[in-house]
């Protein structure tokens, strides 16, 4: 191995380990750049709201119209929120994101979102509540893990 040219002694193994840990923490902090602290709780709340609205069985007018309007509003808000945080203006360019965990999360979320639509007819609309709580908990859990990882970085 080439040593430094300054005449300074090379780092000890402990110093080298600390330097590598420092570098890894910064690399991780770039890959998992911060999102606002309210993002995951807000997303979980909106998703739970959407699912709870779906659990209402055949409401009468004018409640049906109101439910439809609120559902559309919540769905648009979720789309705008995710879009802005994921693809909005950022001081970072071309971050090297590991897509596998992201894809796995999206797939699990998709299954949790689609399953109650398929099951509600045979089991009952209460299944929307169960899946809504499960999906919201998953989003919150992901948010906590994300926050801890970023904070460590």
């Amino acid at each position, binding site marked *: *191995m*080439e*040593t*430094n040219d300054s005449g300074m002694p090379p780092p000890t*193994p402990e110093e080298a380990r600390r*330097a590598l840990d420092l*570098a890894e923490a910064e690399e991780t902090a770039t890959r998992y750049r911060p999102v606002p602290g309210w993002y995951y709780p807000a997303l979980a709340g909106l998703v739970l709201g959407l699912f709870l609205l779906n659990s209402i069985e055949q409401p009468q007018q004018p409640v049906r119209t109101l439910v439809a309007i609120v559902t559309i509003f919540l769905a648009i808000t979720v789309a705008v929120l995710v879009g802005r945080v994921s693809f909005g*203006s950022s001081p*970072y*360019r071309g971050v090297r994101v590991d897509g596998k965990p992201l894809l796995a999360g999206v797939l699990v979320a998709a299954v949790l979102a689609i399953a109650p639509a398929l099951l509600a007819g045979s089991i009952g609309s209460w299944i929307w509540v169960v899946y809504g709580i499960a999906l919201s908990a998953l989003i919150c859990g992901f948010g906590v893990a994300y926050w801890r990882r970023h904070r460590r970085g």
Partner: protein
Amino acid sequence: MVEPRFDDLIHAPHRLRICAMLSQAEGIEFGEVLNRSELSKSALSKHLSQLAQAGYVTDTPIVREGRSRQLLSLTPVGRIAYADHLAALQRIIEEST
């Protein structure tokens, strides 16, 4: 090909952090690096100047949200030097075990 090569310039903790944060992106704006490094503006500029003189970092003016900003990036030479430096550190650890 990564070749273990200890780099004094990169090894300084603040410059190591700067190289590490830039290594995972095509570029990061100066203001963000300033926030994350917790250095003063002049201290960060000094470190960046040293890295730029070695050809490791470039500074590109960009406009985002109607404001001029500086986008900092590791050059190909800088990426190689950073990877080689990490490999050198890893080798120091491995040789001790």
